[in-house]
């Protein structure tokens, strides 16, 4: 009995620590990402020098892809809360191998979301003024505070369960660079696998798992309030908070499935992230998509039934006007069809669910675009003495490059985290293998 447990422990350690190294492949991949980032940074320098004039933003549409991208990133980061807290606290065991993936996604997307806001500032050096002169009545201040809080809690929720694994890396991974070993030494906090230490770690995980639920709900509700607290037709609705949160889970589930697929494939984790995980994540995605579809219908139909003057113009443009092709493609092609497909068991196998998730994630990005931009094209008060082209917004090349940069940054952060730390929790995997054998 002990022998076989020992053996399976060794196998788990070997399998899961295998990815903690800097192979040629990962170096090439990082080099490629860094090269792309430098190209994007070139455009950002251009924007810094010339101001927001290099973008397609103008007097009428003053929030463009930067803001819709910000909303998307905040949305994607919310999944960490759903999987590691809500499902974890309920007691689902199957999530154990994908917990860390969800947390890595949460941390990287949330960290980068804060940076995106700065790219939307023509004078980023004035960021400090927000803290010096900010009014606590303003949702923008709430947003900044809650984003920072969420990043810190997500980092802790990634770090605390990692402590036993960092200690393991410190003991087993002698071949890594000295700097990395020093990081392991500092971050492992002298963890020596004592039962009391495990107890402490589990206690802090529980505290953080509870704490992150209200903060995660707050981060996306406050983000929706940036819109809903104004009087603009199309944003001025009371359902915006839950509407954003439910949409966030759709985007987040899709992001987790995509990450699961690539981590499993490139790190050979087929024994840990199994087809059953894809099956269950697919079901979860169907559930959150159903909630989101319900909120979509509610959000649109209530306004479309009454057609108040301001709403009428906006709805006309997105339902059958010039913004309608993107709207229907996003709603039907990017939400309804994918979730209906996911109901079929065969579609919840790894490859089909990867493809469906990519479609959902891309549509989720465009969905934020549809929420943020068309509303501004119909201002309540006519804006006078501006060129005709101001009433339609098209992002420019520098703007698109600066919008792509955050995605590259997220990939870099995810790569680094998954190369320095095991992407599946080793000690929790051991625990579940013991439980399996005892059964």
């Amino acid at each position: 009995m002990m022998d076989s447990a020992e053996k399976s422990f060794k196998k788990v350690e070997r399998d899961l620590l295998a990815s903690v190294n800097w192979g040629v492949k990962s170096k090439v991949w990082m080099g490629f990402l860094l090269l792309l980032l430098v190209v994007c940074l070139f455009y950002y320098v251009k924007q810094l020098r010339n101001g927001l004039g290099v973008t397609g933003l103008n007097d009428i549409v003053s929030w463009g892809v930067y803001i819709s991208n910000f909303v998307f990133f905040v949305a994607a980061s919310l999944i960490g809360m759903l999987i590691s807290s809500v499902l974890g606290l309920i007691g689902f065991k199957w999530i154990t191998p994908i917990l860390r993936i969800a947390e890595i996604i949460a941390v990287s997307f949330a960290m980068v979301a804060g940076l995106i806001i700065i790219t939307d500032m023509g004078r980023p050096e004035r960021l400090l003024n927000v803290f010096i002169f900010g009014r606590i009545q303003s949702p923008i201040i709430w947003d900044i505070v809650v984003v920072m809080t969420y990043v810190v809690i997500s980092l802790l929720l990634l770090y605390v369960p990692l402590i036993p694994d960092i200690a393991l890396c410190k003991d087993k991974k002698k071949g890594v660079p000295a700097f990395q070993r020093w990081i392991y030494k500092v971050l492992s906090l002298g963890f020596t696998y004592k039962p009391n230490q495990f107890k402490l770690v589990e206690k802090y995980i529980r505290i953080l798992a509870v704490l992150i639920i209200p903060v995660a709900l707050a981060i996306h509700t406050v983000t929706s309030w940036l819109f809903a607290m104004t009087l603009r037709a199309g944003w001025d609705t009371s359902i915006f908070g839950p509407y954003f949160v439910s949409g966030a889970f759709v985007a987040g589930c899709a992001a987790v499935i995509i990450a699961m697929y690539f981590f499993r494939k490139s790190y050979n984790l087929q024994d840990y992230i199994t087809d059953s995980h894809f099956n269950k994540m697919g079901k979860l995605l169907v559930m959150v998509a159903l909630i989101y579809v319900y909120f979509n219908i509610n959000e649109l139909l209530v306004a479309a039934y009454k057609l108040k003057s301001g709403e009428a113009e906006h709805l006309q443009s997105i339902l059958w006007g010039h913004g309608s092709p993107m709207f229907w493609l996003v709603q039907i092609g990017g939400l309804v069809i994918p979730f209906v497909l996911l109901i079929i068991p065969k579609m919840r196998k790894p490859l089909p669910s990867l493809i469906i998730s990519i479609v959902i994630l891309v549509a989720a990005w465009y969905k934020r675009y549809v929420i943020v931009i068309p509303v501004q094209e119909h201002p309540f008060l006519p804006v006078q003495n501006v060129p005709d082209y101001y009433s339609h917004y098209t992002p420019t090349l520098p703007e698109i490059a600066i919008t792509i940069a955050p995605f590259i940054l997220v990939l870099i952060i995810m790569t680094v985290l998954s190369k320095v730390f095991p992407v599946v929790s080793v000690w929790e995997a051991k625990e579940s293998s013991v439980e399996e054998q005892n059964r």
Partner: protein
Amino acid sequence: MPKFIYIIFGLMTCFWSAFAQEWKAPEEEKENVSIRLFDNEIETEGGVLFMNSCKSCHGSPTQEDFSLMLPSPGDLASAKVQNQTDGELFYKIRAGKGAMPKFGDALDQNEIWSLIAYVRSFNESYKQPEPNLEGVVIPNITLNLSFDDNVDKLVVKTLDENGNPMPDVTVKAFVKGHFGNYLLGKSRCNELGIAYFDIDSKMPGDEEGNMDIIVKASKGFGSAKVTQKMRVVDAVSFKSAIEGRHLWSVSKRAPYWLIVTFLSSLIGIWGTIIYVIVGLPKIKKQS
């Protein structure tokens, strides 16, 4: 169809050419003159009336920006208008013709003279003719204002020089505002020389309920004007729009509920975070 249009067009041409004939004032009215001096006050009064009643067709005098109509309304500073006598102009404003409305219904004598005073102010060579006042009695009107707070009415008494009531005086009452006067009403005194004007007690006055009331009266060639501060409305207590604690105030004046909610959430959440961070080194002690 084209035939029909030609007929209409032809008819219109005949119609307008009939109107385009010389517009003459009756001889007996030609020599009428204003008994009021065309001073700055009357010109300003006329200017305001001109904005409201004349400018839409005649445009601003000297600017040649009158409407394109047939017959043309013309610029009132033009020689064609200025060469007419005051009496002719008075008649044309009063009686109207074709597209020119009959302003005698809407304006009183003094107002029409004030319009003429305004139009004449664009003619530097104009000299106001002296009125022939032989045999004309100019009533001397005295105005006495009071406020009846039982029925919320402004009471205007018109008296002659001997202090006797003067009936049949046209009286107009206004409230003085920041950007012009608000007309309370236009009335004619009864046989006791009294005219009443309703006052809405909800109108905004000052902290004591005072308002500047302007009353203008006229009868024949006589006229009078009184401006008087009177306590006629409810007292108003003025508040700054950012006084007190509001969502739209500066940060120091944020509502208490917001400060409490914001700070307590912040302290609660960050307190827990700090508790966890401070507690982490305990792991080392346990080894």
